[in-house]
């Protein structure tokens, strides 16, 4: 019989897990973006730095959140790879000639490249954490904390990074890729988690596209702005 432990054993269970982890990852992106947008506070990055201090001070709560994110990412990617590998098994002899019917089909560039965009995003996330959390590519900078003492100047770190055209371009490209992934992903999550009304289906596809575009633009505006403005406000 079915139970939560064998959700991974059926296509329906796997898709529900993909949808649930996907929704949580989107919520994470929304929170992340909200934090990032404090860079536009016009205070040279102080609000952003204080937000980073606040997160650091959460201590064990932050570790739990980080562990949760690793599990979400891992499970989401694991199922995605498993689905991709299952394709060949389910159709050992492929069509010589195949095309999409169009119409209500959601077989688009975005949906057909979910594995590739997903893999690039995974690689990006690893490099991104090494870049800004573990200072792998740049030395850590310090700045005065208005509450006294010193704090890590993460905003300065961000500013330095995005003044480099290559880093700016690489981040912008990945953000566009995240938008592409979410163009199919947001809608797909709705269907995976039970959008049962046939009339709602096309509406949700549009909503998914808008959410994807807003998130992508929200994130990429930061490197683009910093580069062309020559620094933070």
């Amino acid at each position: 019989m079915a139970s939560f432990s064998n959700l991974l054993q059926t296509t329906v269970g796997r898709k529900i897990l993909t949808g649930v982890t996907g929704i949580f990852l989107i919520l994470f992106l929304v929170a992340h973006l909200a934090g990032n947008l404090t860079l536009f506070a016009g205070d040279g990055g102080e609000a952003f730095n204080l937000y980073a201090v606040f997160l650091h001070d959460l201590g064990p709560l932050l570790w739990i959140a980080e562990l949760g994110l690793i599990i979400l990412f891992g499970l989401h990617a694991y199922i995605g790879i498993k689905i991709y590998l299952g394709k060949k098994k389910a159709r050992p002899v492929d069509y010589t000639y195949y095309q999409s019917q169009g119409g209500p089909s959601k077989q688009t560039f975005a949906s057909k490249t979910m594995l590739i965009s997903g893999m690039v995003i995974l690689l990006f996330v690893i490099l991104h954490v090494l870049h800004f959390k573990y200072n792998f590519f740049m030395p850590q900078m310090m700045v005065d904390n208005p509450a006294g003492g010193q704090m890590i100047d993460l905003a300065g770190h961000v500013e330095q990074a995005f003044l480099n055209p290559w880093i700016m371009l690489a981040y912008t490209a990945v953000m566009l890729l995240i938008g592409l992934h979410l163009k199919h992903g947001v809608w797909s999550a709705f269907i995976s988690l039970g959008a049962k009304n046939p009339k709602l289906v096309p509406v949700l596809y549009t909503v998914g596209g808008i959410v994807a575009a807003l998130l992508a633009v929200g994130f990429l505006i930061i490197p683009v702005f910093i580069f062309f403005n020559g620094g933070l406000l």
Partner: protein
Amino acid sequence: MSTHDLITVHLKVWRQNGPNDRGHFEDYTLKDITTHMSFLEMLDVLNENLMKEKKTPVEFDHDCREGICGSCNLVINGIPHGPQMRTAACQLHMRHFKDNETITIEPWRAKAFPIIKDLVVDRNAFDRIMEAGGYVTMATGNAPDANAVPISKVEADSAMDYAVCIGCGACVASCPNSSASLFTGAKIAQLAKLPQGAPERKKRVIAMVEQMEKEGFGDCSNYGECEAVCPVGISISAIATMRTEYVKALF
């Protein structure tokens, strides 16, 4: 659409002499095909020509030829049931093809639908999914009174939208992952909408989903290609319903 009344078509037909044969494409040219012919009638002409030449005719599945039996499983120019939406291959007419057009005809391709010969595949996997749970329990004896079980018009219509599935397998054939989710989802959604389906509701969704897995169908990635090729236009919301039914069955 062609303005010609009589057209010439060049066919590339998949020939495979049994499940273990490698299979290959064979080219045929048919002259003077009237555009009023159905696609299957055009194949009948091909087979008559082949028989006159003492060659083995092309095996293809067909039965009612009016779009309700779900037998005619042909991938025409890369699309299950061909270029016209909401149309089974038997209801497709030759007026949708141009003069001198090359038409590729392939069988459904999926591990769960092994090829028997040429364009004929074994779709018993669908029957086994139905045996696993696509039925209802009801009292035998005299026919029940009409309206003894009240069902709202909205629910009845919605159940009917899923019940129109003819089990042709185009959803599997069109799916990049060869998933049978639209078929299984339609059957589950239809019975979930009706009080007659209530007694086995939880058992049904688990059993049918597990059987679908055992048959070797692939995963659903919400491509929605199935809905686009479905000859009766079943919405992908059938798959969403299957998933919510599955979650309900977990509790």
